[in-house]
């Protein structure tokens, strides 16, 4: 932990690889928490809609608005000015995300207040809020990926695969959230479709993760170093223990077994919790592995320089 200013100075004067630290240290972790909560809340909303389960809708809304909203606010250096973040949706992905949370929260609340049943005898207004809340949820699932992907300074993030990865993570987290709530409380839901969906989402996420690491290896020296840090460097413990073992292997194994043999509820609770922990670790590991483009790492005198 670089807590002393003189440690950070030493890092800043390096001419090679400098890991980003603002989003993984101290209050920076709150932003990762905010991204995590907005993702699983949005995913949970979609799955609760699919299962037509009002309790799940309420919980998912709470996770997005309360947990993610509070984490976003607590992360800011000047939270009392948060409203200013609404002023630049035309260019800033952070601003678009804040708009997305507000848009989703409003449409979801109105949808719940209308008490509309999406599948039968729904009012036009209820259907409108339903569609808007789904659009808001999808927006929340993708926006954090675009927040990362915009960063030109960090080649490991600056790729189109990141939004897809976080989309899959959020969906899987949402399924896990709903599964956890459904098993932990008296829901009376038929869980088999959810378990199958979760299994496929976990497989998709695993494939995306492999593709992401393979693709970014070719994105320059900094991105390659990030991948090295993930698989055998300073982030490898979080990657192997959090993302792979707890987040992927354990839920996949139990889910696969559960498809053929009924499992007690406690097992599904463990599966859902481990998936959620894994999703949190995905965000953390990707953020932590981010390395700034070296200012002088590829320094050389160009053979032909574009003259002004």
């Amino acid at each position: 932990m670089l807590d002393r200013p003189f440690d950070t100075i030493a890092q800043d004067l390096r001419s090679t690889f400098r890991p980003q630290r603002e989003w993984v240290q101290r209050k920076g972790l709150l932003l990762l928490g905010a991204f995590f909560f907005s993702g699983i809340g949005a995913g949970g909303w979609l799955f609760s809609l699919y299962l037509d389960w009002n309790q799940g809708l309420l919980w998912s809304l709470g996770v997005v608005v309360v947990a993610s909203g509070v984490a976003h606010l607590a992360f800011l250096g000047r939270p009392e000015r948060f409203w200013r973040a609404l002023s630049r949706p035309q260019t800033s992905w952070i601003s678009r995300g804040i708009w997305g949370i507000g848009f989703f929260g409003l449409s979801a609340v109105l949808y719940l207040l209308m008490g509309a049943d999406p599948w039968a005898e729904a009012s036009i207004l209820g259907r409108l809020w339903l569609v808007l809340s789904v659009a808001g949820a999808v927006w929340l699932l993708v926006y954090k990926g675009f927040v990362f992907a915009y960063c030109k300074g960090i080649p490991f993030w600056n790729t189109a695969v990141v939004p897809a990865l976080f989309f899959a993570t959020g969906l899987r987290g949402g399924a896990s959230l709903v599964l956890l709530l459904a098993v932990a409380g008296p829901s009376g839901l038929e869980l088999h479709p959810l378990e199958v969906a979760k299994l496929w989402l976990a497989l998709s996420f695993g494939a995306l993760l492999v593709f992401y690491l393979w693709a970014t290896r070719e994105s320059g020296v900094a991105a390659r170093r990030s991948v090295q840090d993930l698989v055998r460097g300073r982030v490898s413990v979080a990657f192997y223990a959090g993302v792979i073992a707890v987040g992927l292997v354990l839920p996949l194994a139990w889910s696969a077994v559960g498809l053929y043999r009924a499992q007690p509820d406690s097992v599904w609770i463990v599966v859902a919790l481990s998936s959620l922990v894994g999703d949190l670790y995905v965000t953390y590991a990707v953020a932590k592995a981010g390395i700034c483009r070296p200012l002088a790492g590829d320094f050389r005198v160009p053979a032909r320089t574009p003259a002004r």
Partner: protein
Amino acid sequence: MRYGMVIDLKRCVGCYGCQIACKAENGTPPGVLWARVLKLEYGEYPARRVSLPVLCMHCEDPPCEKACPTGATVKRPDGIVYVDTAKCIGCRYCMMACPYQSRYFNDKVREYFPGKGLTPYEKLKYKDHPVGVVTKCHFCRHRVDQGLDPACVANCMAKARYFGDLNDPDSEVSRLIRIRRGYQLHPDLGTDPSVYYLPP
């Protein structure tokens, strides 16, 4: 008018004078280096050592400005990019978006003499460095507006830094870039930095 800087790597002796001059002029807190000097070697043995002074590149198309959700990062008509600390919410997205690592976040009040309290100089200068916001080099805009050069330029003992109008083909910076084949860092990113380097 587009202000820009040219740094002659042949003249730079790596004395860190610009780094200190910047600190003295702007009173940046400990750990905050708006101007830095990186040391590197390149080529095969006998490798050549080069000091590479870096600062905010005041890009023509600054990604930090687009990333800022509040409009706190402002690009003036003369090309100077600065942070309006009264608008910054401290989300640090600009720090991630900047490919030149030239932004710093003031997470708390840091003393140069820990436990001894702020010196009168720190009390005076820290008004420009409020807690919870991001700050960066602004080409010493308070000096530039008075017709002076930025502190790092004025204090460079090797006269390795030049400051002027990049849009004026007759200015010294334009002439040096043209004659000495000046180049930018990471031109491939399309940000069009206003800081040029002359080869060593």
